[in-house]
């Protein structure tokens, strides 16, 4: 297999060794070699290489041949040079080093025979590149060849220039290429145009040289030239907004070309499965998309045409579907009429029902892009999307998962969750983490009742416990703690789950905590919501001991179990001998943390028995910000330990994120550290006697004005709800004090990858003039790791009949917003 070729070996040494030492004397003597052994033809070499049965054999063949080739190069044999180089290039393609052929390429290019030139240029493309200085030497040869006027040679030279031309070469040869743009022969012209594309990529200043001919080139009829020109214009427009404005003038002409293509009948030259030149159509559509983006006028010109293409294209074959797909992408990106957008979504819906998987894949990808802006339209296709979850294809099911998570809203949450949970059970392991975190997030946003929420989290923990994020445990314990009426229910369910399976660590931790806290409710046995179960004290203790002793339990889990046992000493009515025994055994455990706890608890039994009941009372609702009570201190230490010991944290759910902006790759390096453990002094019992105190209310964070332009202002106000310290709510308010209305206002945001951002729908997209009703939009940012907050905003709106686009990063974000 190919991985064996990844190994390097001292090629030069071996080759020299071979030609010197002489495995066969005939390879050692160049004079004799020329007379006696004719060089192998490429075909024969290939057959020999393929005939080799093992890697070692193949290497041997190639080494011998390389020695041969090197000898031949040293002799300077002009007749067979091209053949030798061709063999060398083949060997290079297989992965062996071939740098000694670089100079030969130059010699071959300089020769006058076409065969030589062809191999020479090919060698130059494959072997030379910018990093070797030798490449500059071919500049002169290329210049000569370009001005010679022999078309195939010019074609070769242009091809090579566009593949490996460095910035200096491009600058030197730009005038030559420009001349060739206007030559009559289409063969050379189309290559020259695409070489110009490469030159612009390497040296952007050359755009000014290649911009003027474009308008004239668009009038050509030859499809090759048109295709090249469209690519050139696309590249120019992507690089500079000035070029973009300049080329908006040609939109009518592009529309005309495309219309001719679409309405043209069958033409043998250009038709591919019934569609005339789909590649050109796709390129034109892409260019129209770039030109029409955010520009009302151009978009209007294109509307009719897009509708025509969408309806007239034959979709029975792939070529037609490719064109249709590009049309849909264009409709989505420009300022199209509402009817057209509905048409686009319907086309995508039709694609989803197609049996061809490729088409379904592209449909799912595009729907994901659409879901932010046309949410209701996409909702109509929800059943089909959910169907796609059941696909066996990994790419398709991943897309379907992202789209399904984006489509969850408060009305369909129960049904969707059921589907997603079914999916979680059967999905491939790499999707599990995303699915689990997506389900948990959606449950948090849309949970209709607390009980449903708890059930959902429980289900996720049982099915995919090892893939959930670190804070799932903390979230669940807090949720249960807050739901007073559900204590009995939760503890009963958790006990059952634990009794079945003690391997899923997050589940075990939550269950242990719950049993410890609410053990009395468990034993009381009178919960209405599920069937009554008589649980014995001894069973509970046995279960917790099993967790303690199991080799599958992490140290953090053991900590939870030990604490739970301790708490049960006050909740249970029997005597505490068994508990005392366990606690004293762990007093000599090797794990320091566990040992310390055990020793403390033991002391609690012996010397401070009168305080035990008070200390081990039921916990109040955990405030994760404030100063800690003793149980809470241990809780946070356990959580910290868990995040160290837990498996790789999952990627934040990205489906809600508009990724039109580059995501900031903030200080993600240092974010991965778990919160530091504070070392508790050994044996000191002072912290056991700390009384819980009320945490001070968080100070309000000041508002921030982030943007101001011609009377349009953008303000951010921050709220951090005390019950969820990882959550930050930002309200963005856009006000307009100018004389003109602001319309089509869209605000998009991006945050570093370690945070999660959700944008809610804005209150509107128009701000009337002179202080009219502002637009507000809510951003929710989840920042469990307390990473520094960075925020990049992109605003687009129309003001005074001009479209404005601003992208900026928000500076001076108050520290309280993320600490």
């Amino acid at each position: 297999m190919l991985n064996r070729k990844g190994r390097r070996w001292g090629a030069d040494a071996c080759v020299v060794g071979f030609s010197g030492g002489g495995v066969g004397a005939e390879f050692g003597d160049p004079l004799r070699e020329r007379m006696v052994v004719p060089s192998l033809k490429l075909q024969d070499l290939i057959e020999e290489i393929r005939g080799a049965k093992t890697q070692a054999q193949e290497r041997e063949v190639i080494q011998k041949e390389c020695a041969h080739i090197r000898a031949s190069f040293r002799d300077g044999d002009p007749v067979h040079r091209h053949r030798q180089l061709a063999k060398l290039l083949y060997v290079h393609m297989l992965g062996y080093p071939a740098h000694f052929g670089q100079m030969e390429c130059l010699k071959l290019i300089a020769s006058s025979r076409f065969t030589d030139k062809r191999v020479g240029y090919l060698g130059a493309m494959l072997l030379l590149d910018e990093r070797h200085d030798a490449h500059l030497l071919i500049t002169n040869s290329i210049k000569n060849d370009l001005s010679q006027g022999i078309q195939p040679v010019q074609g070769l030279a242009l091809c090579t220039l566009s593949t490996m031309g460095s910035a200096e070469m491009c600058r030197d040869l730009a005038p030559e290429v420009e001349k060739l743009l206007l030559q009559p022969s289409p063969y050379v012209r189309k290559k020259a145009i695409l070489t110009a594309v490469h030159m612009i990529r390497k040296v952007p200043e050359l755009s000014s040289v290649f911009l003027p001919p474009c308008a004239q080139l668009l009038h050509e009829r030859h499809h090759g030239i048109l295709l090249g020109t469209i690519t050139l214009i696309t590249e120019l427009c992507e690089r500079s907004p000035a070029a973009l404005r300049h080329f908006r003038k040609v939109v009518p002409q592009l529309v005309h070309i495309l219309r001719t293509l679409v309405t043209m009948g069958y033409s043998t030259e250009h038709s591919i499965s019934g569609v005339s030149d789909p590649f050109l159509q796709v390129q034109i559509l892409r260019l129209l998309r770039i030109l029409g983006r955010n520009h009302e006028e151009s978009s209007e010109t294109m509307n009719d045409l897009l509708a025509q293409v969408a309806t007239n294209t034959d979709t029975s074959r792939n070529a037609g579907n490719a064109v249709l797909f590009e049309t849909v992408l264009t409709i989505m990106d420009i300022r199209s009429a509402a009817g057209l957008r509905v048409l686009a979504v319907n086309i995508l819906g039709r694609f989803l029902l197609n049996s061809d998987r490729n088409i379904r894949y592209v449909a799912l990808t595009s729907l994901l892009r659409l879901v932010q802006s046309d949410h209701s339209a996409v909702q109509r296709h929800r059943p089909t999307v959910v169907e796609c979850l059941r696909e066996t294809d990994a790419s398709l099911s991943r897309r379907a998962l992202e789209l399904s998570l984006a489509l969850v809203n408060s009305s369909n949450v129960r049904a969707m969750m059921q589907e997603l949970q079914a999916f979680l059970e059967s999905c491939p392991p790499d999707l599990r983490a995303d699915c689990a975190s997506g389900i948990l997030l959606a449950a948090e946003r849309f949970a209709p009742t607390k009980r449903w929420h708890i059930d959902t989290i429980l289900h996720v923990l049982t099915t995919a416990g090892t893939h959930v994020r670190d804070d799932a445990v903390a979230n669940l314990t807090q949720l249960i703690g807050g739901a007073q009426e559900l204590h009995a229910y939760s503890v009963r369910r958790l006990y059952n789950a634990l009794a079945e399976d003690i391997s899923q660590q997050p589940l075990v931790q939550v269950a242990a905590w719950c049993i410890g806290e609410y053990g009395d409710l468990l034993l009381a046995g009178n919960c209405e919501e599920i069937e009554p179960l008589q649980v014995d004290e001894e069973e509970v203790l046995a279960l917790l001991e099993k967790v303690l002793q199991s080799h599958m339990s992490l140290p953090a889990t053991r900590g939870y179990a030990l604490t739970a046992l301790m708490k049960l000493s006050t909740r249970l009515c029997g005597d505490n001998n068994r508990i005392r025994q366990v606690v004293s055994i762990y007093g000599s455990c090797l794990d320091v943390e566990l040992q310390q706890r055990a020793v403390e608890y033991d002391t609690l039994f012996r010397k401070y028995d009168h305080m035990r009941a008070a200390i081990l009372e039921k916990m109040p609702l955990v405030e994760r910000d404030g100063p800690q009570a003793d149980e809470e201190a241990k809780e946070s230490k356990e959580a910290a330990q868990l995040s160290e010991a837990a498996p790789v944290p999952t990627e934040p759910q990205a489906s809600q994120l508009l990724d039109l902006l580059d995501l900031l790759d903030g200080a993600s390096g240092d974010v991965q550290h778990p919160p530091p453990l504070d070392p508790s002094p050994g044996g000191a019992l002072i912290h056991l006697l700390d009384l819980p105190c009320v945490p001070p209310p968080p100070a309000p964070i000041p508002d921030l004005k982030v943007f101001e332009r011609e009377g349009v202002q953008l303000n951010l106000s921050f709220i951090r709800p005390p019950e969820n310290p990882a959550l930050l709510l930002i309200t963005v308010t856009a006000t307009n004090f100018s004389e003109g209305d602001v319309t089509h206002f869209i605000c998009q945001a991006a945050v570093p990858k370690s945070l999660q951002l959700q944008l809610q729908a804005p209150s509107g997209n128009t701000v009337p003039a002179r202080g009219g009703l502002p637009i507000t939009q809510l951003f929710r940012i989840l920042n469990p790791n307390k990473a520094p907050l960075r925020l990049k905003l992109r605003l687009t709106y129309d003001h005074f009949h001009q479209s404005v686009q601003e992208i900026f990063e928000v500076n001076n974000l108050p520290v309280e917003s993320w600490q």
Partner: protein
Amino acid sequence: MIKFFLMVNKQGQTRLSKYYEHVDINKRTLLETEVIKSCLSRSNEQCSFIEYKDFKLIYRQYAALFIVVGVNDTENEMAIYEFIHNFVEVLDEYFSRVEPIDELPKICSALEPQQACFSPDSSSFKGAASTTPIY
């Protein structure tokens, strides 16, 4: 933009490779191995587009030969899919032999290896599809 173009047989041996962006030679073999592994592991039932690192891979199988094209995000996958088929038709026309597709590269290399290397360039030039029909 097309990043690379590979023709690989079922055993994983590269028959033709063309890179439109510079990639180190030892990274190339690594890349090819991984790409081929992901393509070979897919069944007929699955779709032809794979996400691999920051490329998208679009592959098409012809008997024992796989043609894989790596593109970046801006390309229309279905157009590339069509382009692969177009390329194979061009090769067929040019070398005027239609069957055993694995023999095709042998023929290419037998007759004019340079042609085979250049024909990706005539249809797709520096990462952009250039001419469509079979000129």
